[in-house]
């Protein structure tokens, strides 16, 4: 490598590397980014079973059913129009109660049940999961001021 071309070569390597980074990111995003749905948009969309997605809405009153093992639950997430059954195995987050907002990470399995890997409930006083901020929170039975432990 001629010395006077060194800077040019280094600059080219950097450009190639950054374009490479962009391509890596684009391909990983296409496969791994998970889209957010509410029960209504999920019903309308044709989501392949097994594809990672997020589901958000309100936990329907009276819908939480606990399994005999003490750590499995099923519940129904609803928005104004539709509802979706969710199965989850694990410790439910603090403040996960009927009538409150929840965002579940997981996937649909055959039989149109949504299996959640993790649940995100309203995390603290000032924090509502961002995806739920646009949903009409007046449907929630518990709000910041009335939430009881």
């Amino acid at each position, binding site marked *: *490598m001629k010395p006077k071309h060194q800077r040019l070569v280094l600059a080219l390597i950097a450009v190639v590397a950054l374009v490479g980074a962009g391509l890596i990111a684009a391909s990983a995003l296409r496969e791994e980014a*998970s889209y957010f749905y509410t029960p209504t948009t999920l019903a309308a969309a044709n989501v392949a079973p097994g594809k990672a997605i997020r589901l958000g809405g309100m936990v329907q009153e009276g819908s939480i059913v606990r399994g005999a093992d003490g750590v499995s639950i099923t519940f129904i997430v609803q928005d104004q129009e539709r509802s979706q059954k969710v199965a989850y195995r694990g410790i439910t987050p603090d403040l996960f109660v009927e009538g409150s907002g929840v965002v579940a990470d997981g996937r649909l399995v055959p039989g149109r049940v949504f299996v959640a890997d993790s649940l995100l409930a309203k995390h603290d006083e000032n924090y509502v999961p961002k995806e739920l901020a646009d949903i009409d929170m007046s449907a929630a039975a518990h709000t910041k001021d009335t939430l009881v432990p």
Partner: protein
Amino acid sequence: MIAEAGLAALWLAASMALLQLIAGLTLLRDGAGQLVPLIKPAAYVQGALSTFAFFALMWLFYDTDLSVLLVANNSHIDKPLIFKLAGTWGNHEGSMLLWVAVLSVSGAAIAFFEKRIDTKTLYATLSVQGFIALGFFAFLLFASNPFERLLPAPIEGAGLNPLLQDVGLAFHPPTLYMGYVGLSVAFSFAVGALLTNQVGPAFARAMRPWVLAAWIFLTIGIAAGSYWAYYELGWGGWWFWDPVENASLMPWLAATALLHSASVLATRNALRAWTIMLALVAFAMSMAGTFLVRSGILTSVHAFAVDPERGAFILALMLMYTGLAFVIFALRIGTVKQGEPFQLVSREGGIVANNILLSVILAVVLIGTLYPLAAEAMGDKISVGPPYFNKATVPVMVLLMLALLIGPMLRWRRDELIRIRYWLIGAAAILLLGAIVAWQLAPDIGLFPLLGIAFSLALAVAAWLPLRGRKLLRTPLPVFGMVIAHFGIAVSVFGMAAESGFSSETLTALAPGENAKVAGWEVKLNDVNPIAGDNWVAVEGDMIAAKNGNQFALHPQSRHFFTPPMQTSEAALLTRWNGQLYAVIAQPDQEGDGRWQVRLWWKPFVTFIWYGALLIAFGGAISLFGRMFRRTKKPTRNRWQS
């Protein structure tokens, strides 16, 4: 009264920053000016005034002066003293005041200590520093005044988010801020050197301690944040690729690259434009980090402070500073002469590989963090989580480890791989052996943990090789620093790979008296008791973990706080030399059959992740100490050559 004095100090400090900026501009235009001699004194005064303002706010928190809005919103008369004080920076306004105070004190320190660069570059650097401070003073004074009064004063105050009432976390944000501010100093040096045509080894030597210090703080801050998320969130994970975590990781990646390229510039006078570019990028990343965390634009498990107006203000500041800096870069880079040439196979070549791979990781993390925002602007709600980040970054990290196995063995300027053939064969043998052993232990370990184990073993050896053939007593401290930091990476990666490859988990519901098993441990739940703290009540599990006849008590808690109302999990951690037993207890089973949800993990070597991070920071500290100490001695030539 104290609040008003603090506010006045802020205004005066802002005027000092403005003075520094104007004096610097006259210097650049005319080459001199009546205001120029005032630059240094202005930097001292600015540092003193900002420090005063910060301690004024701390006094208000100590005193729990509820007539100040910020105190009323974030403190409570019942809070323990340490958290009252930590409340000073545990909120948006206070943390920005801390940011500015550290920035101002850094400016004063440069003015006082820096002797290696010429006066004109020093003045230009201080002016840039003043310019940055000015923007943040404006932000404080116009958009987040920490000293605002509240009338009438409330009786007890709202309290601090209980998740933040944790000693570790009390010192987490200030640590990261030190890192961000250190990078702003590096940025000021870079722009100052560009403006005065002094991009060379002297500038790199002046900038390097600041980059090193920033990098040490960022390393500690990231490790502390990770450990906090690990035990406080109760999810068993130590890195969630959460936007707030990424906001601290991105400046760290840029600082790591900058640290290495600045070393090349300081010792070999090469990579000039490259180093300047990295300094700008590192600052842009720390501004982006501040913006992402402080604007509330992101969904995050631990985002606090949500206010779009402030976000817009920080975004405007970020675009202005980085935009101006890149314009100056574009205009002035033609005047920066190419540095010393080198062959691709050389120490410099290895460091270029380090820089490029770190930049690729940085770009991938940045895209993954910002993409959901861009998509949302287009009307799509998506989230980008660990699957993306692991898939896109881990292969690049493997390449980075490969570069780390070879680069430090090479000579400066030109070398041949054939010269280090015995090490190359040895490294390949360790890699193969490590992979086979890991695969034998756990056939379903997965590719990335397998590679992680193999590479960490090879690197644990490679890290020490630069000391081979040296007289240890005469080896400069920075070489020891490098060796220890690289060994720390091996330790940390080993912990990450072992944790993700070999962890076992048990999730069950237990009635008092029942047992659960995880990875050879037998954990018995004796009882569950209610207990109370200063401002919380909790249920506490009384557990006994037994293995090979040894018994240990575990006391996981599920806490409920009153002000503000919220619940947190306090995991019980049993640390052994070869891993941690991690136990979480949840609220009672609502069926009322007397069972409690219990989650147990055995995490082999998980503590190595943070031990490694401490070693990395310790290596940095040794190096920094060596650099500051060496100034008094005569510099030796070719210190790096073995």
